[in-house]
């Protein structure tokens, strides 16, 4: 593994750990308003400063990261699930089912991803579940493509032929024989795409379509505080750095995975 890969792996592990153990790491309420310390610059008591309601930014960044990363991971797994179902059915079914499912897949891929995600999320009331739905309804398509391709090659392999020869039903072949062989590549793809999911999640929260105040996410912290950028730049600095670093490390890890496994996720970056 290259040095950049190692550093990224460490960073991602740290972020995951801190996010999951947030209440143990920092016993401070991220939403507690303190009107005596509005917009104070970073200090020993508030290492990253406070925002315009006196809330501790470090606590908000940590708890916000919990949501940002949690939403992205759940959405990634959802996309993987939908993509697996569609890809397996299309690849194994073939014929009309394949044509119909792939037509829908291509349709989703032909939409600009951020616009489609916005379109889906305005339909539902804003919140983290809406963001999950929006991200997965856009993201499943590239998984479906990948899995279908995988199934098409697997279908001809001797083990599937043997399964069919001993009289396994289609359902059994799909669930017990094909699915387990598709899961590794699907997981790799999820890892590859997590950086993009984090960016899109933060963009949707920035647009006000994600978690609603007072709940913090990295994207919504930036949009809420951007009016104070000149007077109190630290309020925007730390959440932005966290988004960029997390996405960067996921993307560098993805690069590593891509070089090793030879998968190309035709993911488009969100504007």
């Amino acid at each position, binding site marked *: 593994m*290259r040095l*950049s890969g190692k550093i990224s792996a460490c960073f991602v592990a740290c972020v995951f750990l801190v996010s999951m153990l947030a209440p143990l790491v920092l016993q401070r309420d991220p939403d507690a308003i303190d009107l005596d310390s509005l917009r104070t610059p970073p200090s020993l008591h508030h290492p990253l400063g406070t925002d315009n309601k006196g809330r501790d930014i470090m606590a908000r960044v940590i708890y916000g990261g919990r949501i940002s990363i949690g939403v992205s991971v759940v959405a990634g797994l959802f996309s993987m699930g939908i993509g697996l179902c569609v890809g397996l059915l299309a690849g194994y079914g073939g014929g009309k089912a394949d044509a119909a499912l792939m*037509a*829908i897949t291509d*349709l989703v891929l*032909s*939409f*600009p991803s*951020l*616009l*489609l995600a*916005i*379109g*889906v999320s*305005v*339909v539902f*009331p804003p919140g983290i579940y809406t963001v999950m739905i929006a991200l997965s309804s856009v993201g499943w398509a590239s998984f479906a493509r990948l899995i279908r391709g995988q199934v098409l090659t697997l279908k001809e392999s001797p083990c599937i032929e043997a399964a069919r020869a001993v009289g396994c039903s289609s359902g059994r072949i799909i669930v017990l024989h094909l699915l387990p062989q598709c899961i590794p590549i699907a997981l790799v793809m999820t890892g590859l795409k997590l*950086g993009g999911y984090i*960016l899109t999640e*933060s*963009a949707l929260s*920035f*647009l*006000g*379509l994600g978690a609603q105040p007072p709940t913090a996410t990295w*994207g919504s912290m*930036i*949009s809420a505080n*951007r009016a104070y*950028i*000149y007077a109190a*730049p630290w309020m*925007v600095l730390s959440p*932005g750095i966290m*988004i*960029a670093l997390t*996405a*960067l490390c*996921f*993307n*560098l890890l993805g*690069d590593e995975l891509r070089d090793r496994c030879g998968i190309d996720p035709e993911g*488009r*970056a*969100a*504007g």
Partner: protein
Amino acid sequence: MKGFILRKVLLLVPLLFGITLTTFALTKALPGDPAVNMVGERSRPEIIAKMRKEIGADKGVVRQYAGYVLLLLQGEMGRSYYTNRNVLDDIRIKFPNTLRLALGAMAMAIPPGMILGLFAAMRKGGWADRTISVFSISLLSIPVFWSGLMLMLLFGLVLKLLPPSGTGGLRYMLLPALTLSLPALGTIARVTRVSVLEVADMPFIRTARAKGISDCRVNGIHVMKNALIPVVTVIGLDFASYLNGAVLTETIFGWDGIGRFMMEGIIKRDYPVIMGCIIVGTSLFVFTNLAVDILYHYLDPRMRIYETER
């Protein structure tokens, strides 16, 4: 050649059909009743019923969809709930600004992106290659709404070199265009590198070198010309996503284009505006892809032969 373009255009038909179907489904799923929205919540039930009949909401779904497509064909995307202005008219006024921004961003992203990619490919495996690779991934990982704010803080507020926000001439355009160009620069550098490396392995490049053509000429002309095709695709795709990614950048810089128009629509839950912007943005995206496909044929004679043989 003509047959190829015709086929590509015909392929657009089911695609556009699917897009209108999707946006129609989204419009149907939107919360709130459009008839109620148009006449006001406190209207009497018979007025609402009359309005519903007028806009055709009492008919079956298929007829409603047909009516929706007919309206779209006439350029009717509804009126904003707030300003009661025709959405398409507003988009038409704001589109040139967005286009200007996207073109500016392209102009700033393409030359450095291609040079970095070519340089990285020439130094394959070395530290320069690695640095450029990490650098371009970083550009892709920084959210534009944050890099935009940072550029605004640095150049607009601390150094006071450029106006921090607003719509206007070149001085106003520099910062938002730079912001939009950063992720594109990263993508172009990466794709150029991969594409150049692929071409550099081909026999005709070895032949060119064997014939004693200078390194500079081989890389600059023989390799670059052949490596251009994937790069053009990515630039085309990126150009389409500039037109859309502008939602974030334009909002930050107060640039009066489609992106900010859409953002205002989102904040006010002005559904006709949001849907109008999505339809226009998606169609632009699809048509840009078509244009890129056709452009290939002028760039690469091999494609033309391949197509006529089929």
